[in-house]
């Protein structure tokens, strides 16, 4: 039968490989979820079949929220992510706009400088940065990470936004200028509103990256009350050789949810941001 053969060929080219990608890609999340709701006697037994939960429990979540500083870490993470996202998108816009749309002396140097700061990896900077933060006496404050995260996020936002700013036709701005708009007004009332998708992409990306940041938070935030979720989970829920896997997985899952929610609402902007650097429109 023709239909049967079509299905076979489609299974071979689409369904089977797609299923493999989806299962391998999502298995760790499934594993997080079921570990977090398994009672300890199921977790630490080699006899019980581990792929499903037999007697689900919320104990690990309750313990996580009552016995650890998880809620404080969540608050810190959100605060830092929001503040650094705003700083980075605003300063990124202010860098990208002149680079994309205006002519001025020194433009080439600034453009190369911004690209270079984007590509300089964190491991190259964290030791001198630690010394600088120490001298400023900002250790164990959220200010330390609010100052350092934008070093990663501003170049990225600027890079992403330049592409969007370039795509707005010059005539629109010129018409506004002839009607008496200042440069500032032309930017804020004409170009920026047209680049809302770009600003959203940059914002969502910056927010995700800020939630993901680990190295600076690890170095600067040594006290439990100021830690972010990734640092709190990795440094405090893993206690020596004793693991609290149920709590750990509950923390990992809850810590991933804010990003996942934002992402689910703005997938298209996220993908646009991701591909903007690599694919030209």
């Amino acid at each position: 039968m023709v239909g049967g053969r079509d299905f076979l060929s489609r299974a071979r080219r689409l369904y089977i490989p797609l299923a493999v990608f989806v299962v391998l890609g999502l298995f760790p999340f499934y594993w997080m979820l079921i570990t977090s709701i398994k009672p300890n006697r199921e977790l630490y037994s080699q006899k019980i079949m581990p792929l499903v939960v037999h007697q689900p429990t919320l104990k690990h979540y309750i313990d996580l929220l009552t016995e650890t500083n998880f809620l404080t870490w969540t608050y810190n993470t959100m605060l830092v992510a929001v503040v650094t996202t705003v700083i980075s998108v605003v300063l990124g816009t202010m860098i990208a706009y002149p680079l994309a749309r205006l002519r001025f002396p020194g433009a080439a140097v600034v453009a190369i400088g911004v690209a270079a700061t984007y590509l300089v990896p964190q491991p190259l900077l964290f030791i001198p940065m630690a010394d600088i933060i120490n001298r400023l006496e900002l250790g164990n404050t959220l200010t330390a990470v609010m100052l350092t995260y934008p070093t990663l996020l501003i170049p990225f936002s600027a890079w992403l936004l330049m592409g969007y700013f370039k795509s707005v036709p010059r005539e629109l701005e010129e018409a506004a200028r002839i009607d008496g708009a200042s440069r500032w007004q032309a930017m804020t009332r004409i170009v920026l509103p047209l680049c809302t998708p770009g600003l959203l992409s940059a914002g969502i990306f910056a927010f995700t990256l800020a939630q993901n940041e680990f190295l600076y938070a690890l170095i600067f935030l040594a006290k439990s009350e100021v830690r972010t979720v990734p640092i709190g989970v990795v440094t405090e829920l893993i206690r020596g050789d004793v693991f609290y896997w149920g709590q750990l997985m509950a923390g990992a899952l809850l810590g991933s949810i804010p990003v996942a929610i934002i992402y689910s609402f703005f997938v298209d902007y996220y993908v646009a941001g991701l591909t903007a650097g690599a694919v030209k429109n």
Partner: protein
Amino acid sequence: MAVGPASIVRPAPVEGRPVTVRGLIEREGVFSWLMLAPGVLFLLAFVAYPFFYGIFLSLEDRRVASEGVFVGLANFRVLAHDAVFWQVVRNTFMYVCVTTILKLAGGLAMALVINQRFRGRNLARAFLLLPFIVPTALSTVAWMWILDPTFSVVNWLLVHGGIISSGYSWLGNAALAMWSLIVVNTWRGMPFYGITLLAGLQTISPDLYEAAAIDGATTTQRFLYVTLPVIKPVLIIVTMFSVIFTFGDFQLIYALTHGGPANATHVFSTLAFDIGMSAGQLGMGAAVALSILPALAALIVILTIYLRRE
């Protein structure tokens, strides 16, 4: 009544425009630099200054809470004779090269699969990108549990599937630990390749494929002579970015193995952290970190030249 004549008397602003603050701000160069100043000053203070300060530190014998002593290239000389440092060089190159090949091949396959027409394609794309957006440290903790020496689900599956008789210590054995890192990095990074390459594939006009099909091209030929040439620029850029960022990878390795067992998975960033932060030898740590600069600079220059040419 005096309003009319007054406006006639006002000097015509044609020649030699008076310099007002507003007029000054409206000049392209002035406006540009006013806009740039906050961001550029910030990046100078918190990227450029630490970068050069790091070079300065690498030339010092500097320990936490004490003054540094200038030692020239002594730190680098010590590293050049340090077996652990050379192991780190090998580990880093292995980690970067193998993960890049796997992510590239897997990502291309992923892109080709999702590029077909089917129901729920956007949903599939959203789900497949999930490993890339979830905070790395948190998903790595899940992998730690998946690879646990006693309760590893991978071991359970392999043993119960009759493939092995007893479980492996995925993170405790030197060779296996490196491969475990490679698998986790590939799991996390492959969707980035997949989704960006998909965007590249979607720029290919269906006419090209039709024309190739009419000319009797096989599937393989169509891939080699239509698909690849079109997505080549995207492929190169994505790979370069990914290589640069994988070089600087820290949290995945730190969370999964801390560089162990016996330095088998130490890379530049984790070694620099151990020496600079844990042991407090800022100068030596900075020297370790700076050692990736030559390879990195080469990559960045190649990427910049490529981007300019395109």
